[in-house]
């Protein structure tokens, strides 16, 4: 059995057992991974021998502490990679997830660790309250008249009001007009909303196609 198959299974088991109180079943696994139950059953018994998991009655599967450790590690790698691919490189979420599925098995712990630390920087920037130039474009980087799509919103002290007004990831916005200080009016869900430059700088966007 290949390591990648083993890791995929452990990862899936970890994720499934987070969402429900009782251990996942083989059919849950086959839904999650889109594999046939027979194929999975074969792998599972090998893995039981290796000490990764225990097969319980009613086709339920429980991870051993070791299996759960590895599974969580893989899941974490997947998240970081997916996030990097979609948020920073701008890949579509679905493709980013598929790509992350392949990369997660080969990336070294150190590379992942560094990537993770790199990724958590944009958030910390706000906590320090400084307006460092970020690698991601915000509303401030586009001229009036642009049609844009929100990719993420990160502001200090929460930005509930923005979410309530419809400024959520994936939403189309049009930049209607800007002033000299970069205060701007954006058009969202049929409303014109005026925002200060410091608010605009927390709304990350990309051009809408």
């Amino acid at each position, binding site marked *: 059995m290949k390591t990648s198959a083993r890791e995929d299974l452990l990862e899936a088991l970890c994720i499934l057992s*987070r*969402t*429900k*109180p009782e251990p996942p079943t083989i059919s849950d696994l086959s839904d999650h991974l889109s594999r046939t139950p027979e194929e999975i059953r074969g792998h599972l018994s090998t893995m039981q021998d290796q000490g990764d998991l225990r097969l319980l009655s009613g086709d339920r599967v429980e991870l051993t502490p070791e299996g759960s450790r590895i599974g969580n590690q893989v899941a974490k790698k997947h*998240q970081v990679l997916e*996030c990097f691919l979609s*948020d920073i490189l701008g890949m579509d979420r679905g493709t980013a997830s598929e790509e992350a599925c392949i990369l997660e098995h080969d990336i070294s712990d150190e590379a992942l660790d560094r990537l993770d630390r790199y990724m958590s920087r944009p958030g910390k920037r706000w906590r320090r309250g400084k307006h460092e130039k970020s690698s991601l474009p915000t509303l401030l980087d586009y001229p009036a008249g642009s049609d844009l799509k929100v990719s*993420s*919103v990160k502001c*200090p*002290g*929460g930005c*509930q*009001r*923005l*979410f*309530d*007004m*419809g400024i*959520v*990831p*994936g*939403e189309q916005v049009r930049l*209607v*007009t*800007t*002033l*000299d*200080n970069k*205060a701007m*009016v954006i058009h969202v*869900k*049929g*409303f*014109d*909303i*005026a*925002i*200060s*430059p*410091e*608010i605009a700088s927390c709304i990350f966007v990309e051009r809408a196609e």
Partner: protein
Amino acid sequence: MRLGLVGNPNVGKSLIFHQLTGIGVEVSNYPGTTVDLMKGNLCFKHEKLELVDLPGIYSLEGNSPEEVMVRTFIQEKEAEVLIAVLDATHLERNLYLFLQLAEFGKPLIAVLNIMDEAAKQGIEIDTAKLSSILGVEVIPVAAVTGMNVAEIIPAALFRARIPAVQVPYDHHIEAAIRSIQSVHPATRLQALQALQGIGTDPETNSLVEALGPEIEEMHRMTIVQIIAGNRHHRAEAIADLVSSDRGDAHPDSLDSLLTSRRSGPIILVAILLSILVSVFLIGSFIEEFLVGVFEMLVISPFSALPLDPLFRQLGLSLLLALQAGLGIALPFIFTFYFFISILEDSGYLTRAAFLADRAMHRLGMHGQGLVPLILGFGCNVPAIMGIRLLRTRRERVIASFLVSMVPCSARTVIVAGIVAVFIGLPAALSIYAITLGLVILTGLVLSRITPGEQYGMILELAPLRVPRIGNILSKSWYRIREFLFIAMPLLILASLVLGLLQYAGFFSLFQQWITPWSEAVLGLPGYATTALLFGILRKEMALETLVILAGTADLPSVMSLAQIYIFAVVSVLFIPCISTIGVLAKVVGARITLLVSLYTLILGLLIGAIINLVIV
């Protein structure tokens, strides 16, 4: 039985409230007009009902004061039935709030307001379909024309239902709701509130602490953001199903002129200045006319009557109070409110706020802070109430200082009534310039020394509309009525007391004591300083008292022009009136109120003394 009006800001809740109860509440074309609960009674088929107008909100899960107020109102079961007011021209965003409201499981009906404009924009909404999706009755209404307004109460009384519509959340959120519920008995609403950090039950909250970070990590988004996204998604789907054309408003050329970076600021300054000048010109024209007529028809004949000195003194005080109140105050207050109402109803106020964002940042606030400042020109009391909408304490503290310094219409009465009339328009405008300069200076200093954080502006621009003359007149009338029925009786009473005191020689005693101070510091006669003190009760009273104590409305015959000017400057700057102090204490607390009062007191005396030194 009690009914509550709930909805987004600026959707017409207060107008519907007014139409149903006949009570004159503020109806203005900008978000955040209503900031407090307003209750009113109405009778339906001999049954007494209570209707509550609530502040407009964007969310039932936020933590801004008005959102907390409405949430508590709904959760504490304060109303048996809720009337959800939706704006037909912005159905999608309004459905977002409706979906939240539905989760509270209260019986309600939906009112689809502003149908007249929706029709004009070519938006057609299938109300029957909307009603079946939401699971409650939907009434299309146009509150301005009164269309279907009469249907609202019978529907709310007899056909209110608990909405059937539900938002399908992301499967991680749904799973979290289920696991909260499996461990601990909680409703879907309680679980959702706990997930968004506003739960009240400690046990559910601690469960969320365990579940939350993992979900947020997986989505790289906060739970609040995930939930908001799901709700918007559902709202969009429903809006798509029921409306033929969502008529995405084509860019309006007038609007782009008003908000453009070149012409916008020029237009803003021009509008504000021309309002000020027109108020002075129109007001003083009416004033001269009224005062002249009053003098000729009432005061002169009265003076000619052979009367006992006591009655003569009392009668004269009474007539002078009437003359000053009706002849001087009324024309200015009315003209002022007339123009302010036009600003409010046209939707321009929110655009002015946007344009002023940069300047307001210098003063330690942001664009939204301009709205209370402009409203303050009308009356400081509602303006101070309005600063509750600013989101941080720092902004509220700064705004409370600045708004209290804005010359309200009562202070305009003094400036226009004596300075513009006796000295001239440039002199009157110079008082505004001085005040404005001091407001800016104060803001610059406060923005440096006030502790706390600052967030920027997030302000929805109200639609541009041609103001309805009826609404403007009735609004001005409601505000004037307050003056006529509350201030005038007070003024008349006070003038009688003043007349008596003067007759008894009390004032000469007081004035003997105050005169040396008054003359040394401000260069004013003792009675003028006494009048300034009365201005604390109500600002116009400074003028009225001055007229009574001086014994004539023709002030230049007893005071020099420099004295008139100083009197006006000091009364404009000097301590806000009692009612303003009252709301200040409610909104920002006793300590800040005391600071504001002390600051303005010192500022008024200081500037008065400086002018006295310079001019004399």
